[in-house]
């Protein structure tokens, strides 16, 4: 499913620690228009445990998650 979606923007947070991971995602999404898609690369462990639920809590939508080697790729649709 992830293959069909083109991202409007990209963000790599594999060098960041929680909660900066979520903060960066939140700020990036805020700069985007509703309905646009953000592709986020993040690490296993705390980031994948925390970012999806925090993003959901902000009203955005996770379209897909895919493991890419030891990391994860998230596709997030910007909510209202």
């Amino acid at each position, binding site marked *: *499913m992830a293959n069909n979606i083109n991202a409007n923007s990209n963000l790599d947070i594999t060098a960041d620690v929680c909660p900066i991971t979520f903060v960066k995602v939140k700020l990036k999404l805020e700069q985007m228009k509703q309905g646009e898609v953000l592709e986020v690369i993040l690490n296993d462990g705390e980031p*994948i*445990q925390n970012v*999806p*639920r925090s993003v*959901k*809590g902000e009203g955005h*939508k*996770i*379209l*897909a*998650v895919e493991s890419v080697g030891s990391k*994860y790729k998230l596709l997030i649709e910007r909510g209202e």
Partner: protein
Amino acid sequence: MTIDYNELKKGGFLKQKQKDKYIVRFRSLAGNLSSDQLRALADLADKYGQNYVHVTTRQGMEIPFVAITDYNDMKTEIKDLGLNTGTCGPRIRTVVACPGNEVCGQGLMNTREMALHLDEAFFGRDVPMKTKIGISGCPNSCAKPQENDIGLLGVIEPVLQEDLCIGCGICQKVCPNKAITMVDGKPILDESRCLYEGNCIASCPVDAWLEQRRGYQVYAGGKIGRKPRLGQVVAEFIPEDQVIDYVEMVLKVFEVLGTQGERIADTLSRVGPEAFRQEMEAQRKNG
């Protein structure tokens, strides 16, 4: 003056090592103290103690080095200042609580309110042995209910609406106990591995994982001390409006099955959780 040590203990005045000196124990309500209460405690510590308070492991405060001759004055001041004393001896103790879902993002239940109800219903009651109650709003268990004679743990049970699922696999990833496995693009839940903390529900982007029910697990028989034991679940998914009843039930079962000098942990070890649960059921039917 003649001293009734039992009365003193009941009222939170504990004899300390030094002659004629007492530790005055205060409790918080649901783990909270207002800023006015904190200021009052500081003032009392300066006036009657040695300018410090000891913060206890059960969310209380203690002022040591209070002279017994100050007992009456201090009691009056405590009342006027809106402080609450703790207790000692064979009584139900301070209810320890986590902040709960009022402020915590992971909280499943409003433990602050429930702790206030529990304090009102149970604190200070005379019981065969000291009895401690703890409540946490989710399986992170920050207030450690499993270490208390009677514990309450907020839990949530997930259920899948399969037609909504988009197969993203987040639920498999966020489950702390590998209870969910993606099979042909759909999640399969092994409920025997479910810890009821609800990460799947919280993380599901399309709300395919939903809440089936939430409530409190009731634990009995936790204690630390010289022979630590963890409490065991004696009732599951108890709704908020039945929590008080179930705590009464555990106390009743302890009264029926316990022998002198036992803590609930000892009773539970001796009769076994099955017999304990059976007596709970008998009490539930009678009540």
